[in-house]
């Protein structure tokens, strides 16, 4: 229906244009409209990440630690859902807000029990929410319908919640990466301008490790998305 409407509108302008061949076309008071807004939705994969080990220590006779058992924790890999909203600053730079949700498994391996209990791994799923703001730098493409590489860097917030109720951890995250986008369909001016796909890869570093309070926790993120540019 949208295609028909656009065609009909152009046809109606075509007739008077022919009748006005003796006059130069009026110059548009504005330049060509520049697509400003991009929305993308997609999914991907976040790698698992090791967290710090934490020993359950008792106080020894001289104050030295006496180990009751050891634990080593990690966040399992997950398939996040991502949504992005981009605002084009100029042809090369876009400001992008990204929100994501994933349900990784928090896994803790327990070993070296002082009373000989066998090693065991215990786990629990958590909801991991993140929101960040990035600057995306697009490189020039040779023609309108071509692969466009980009790089991005940003920072944001990450929070882990258990069963939607308990905030287990929150803090800042930093991400840097890049990717490519490819337009599947290009449209004229106004409204929807471009539909395409994009692939992203990034290194995300959470400033404090989830659960163990360890140092920065790195994760590799790969994702794909469908985008719409208005």
């Amino acid at each position: 229906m949208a295609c028909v409407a656009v065609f009909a509108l152009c046809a109606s302008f075509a007739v008077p244009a022919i009748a006005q061949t003796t006059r130069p076309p009026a110059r548009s008071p504005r330049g060509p409209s520049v697509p400003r807004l991009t929305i993308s939705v997609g999914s991907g994969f976040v790698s698992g990440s090791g967290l710090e080990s934490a020993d359950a220590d008792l106080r020894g006779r001289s104050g030295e630690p006496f180990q009751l058992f050891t634990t080593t924790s990690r966040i399992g890999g997950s398939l996040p859902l991502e949504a992005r909203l981009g605002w084009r600053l100029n042809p090369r730079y876009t400001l992008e807000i990204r929100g994501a949700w994933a349900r990784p498994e928090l896994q803790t391996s327990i070993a070296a029990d002082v009373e000989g209990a066998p090693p065991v791994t215990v786990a629990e799923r958590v909801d991991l929410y993140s929101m960040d703001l990035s600057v995306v730098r697009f490189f020039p493409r040779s023609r309108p319908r071509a692969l466009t590489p980009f790089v991005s860097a940003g920072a944001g917030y990450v929070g882990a919640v258990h069963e939607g109720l308990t905030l287990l951890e929150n803090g800042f995250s930093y991400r840097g990466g890049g990717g490519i986008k490819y337009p599947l369909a290009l449209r004229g001016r106004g409204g929807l301008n471009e539909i395409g796909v994009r692939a992203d890869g990034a290194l995300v570093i959470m400033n404090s490790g989830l659960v163990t309070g360890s140092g920065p926790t790195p994760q590799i993120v790969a994702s794909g998305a469908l985008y719409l540019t208005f």
Partner: protein
Amino acid sequence: MTRVLLLVAVVIGFAAVPVQGYSHFGTGVSTVRLHWTTMPVRWFATDRSVPGVSSAQFRSALESAFNTWHEVPTASIQSVFGGMTSVEPFQDDGLSVLGFQDHPEMDRVLGATTFVFDDESGELTEADIFFNSSFEWSTAVGGDATRFDLESVALHEIGHFLGLGHSAVGETEMRPEGGRRVLGSGAVMFPIALGRGSIADRVLQPDDIAGISDLYPANGFGEHTGGVHGRVRRGDAPVFGAHVVAFNMRTRALVGGFSLGDQGEFQILGLTPGPYVLRVEPLDDADPDSFFDVESIDINFQVTYYPRLVVAPSGGVGDEVIVTVRPK
């Protein structure tokens, strides 16, 4: 009001003396929570010195120990030194007195606490502590390898004085000559002292802090901490008296509780919100009489970890967990 004499002790061997009626805080079952309702609690020190400890050093060590409990930020406790006195501990006189007494017959008891309390409400009206002068004591800043540290033992006994029971967060081994030796302790309130020369128990541990905060919560304590609860079972049968320890991987805190309900229920409160490893063990690192005056403690099961991480939510307790243990 009933005068109830409860004797709680720090021992160097195994606990030869009964008993105390307060189970660990947060279990919330069947026992009365002993507590002071009027603050500050006034206490007196017997004006008696022993070799190695003058009466002034005795008072100073006690004040340091009281201050350590006062300084728990999540608890609201106040006490005041009433003065030196010639009154002996363990007299039903309305005065809470701490002092040395010579009890050579208690050859494993370093100190003990008695209470006068309302046996319905648990309200304390008097508590006395004696330190057994049959042992050699020290108040040296760095400890004395041949003597027991007075401040460490006082910190433990004052925990009882305030209403805390014994904690089971600790590991021991049998000594060839009898009794038990501490390998590691997770609480000042563990019933067996670390030994001569050790001053490590001048500092409270997370289990002590959770216990005292649960009993005398400061503003916001309940809202900012959480708990875990559940049941311990072996097959279809409840396990009574299992020791359940929650371990927080972030803070490294170990906080314990006991399954004391008819259905093996346990509850551990005062936890920093977050995920925990739950470890269930038989209560076999000290005489069970050190913890409860019951005879049906079940120790016939293996150390067991709950197969999931358990989350303590902020301001509440998480879902009930059922820990199934296997017999030895």
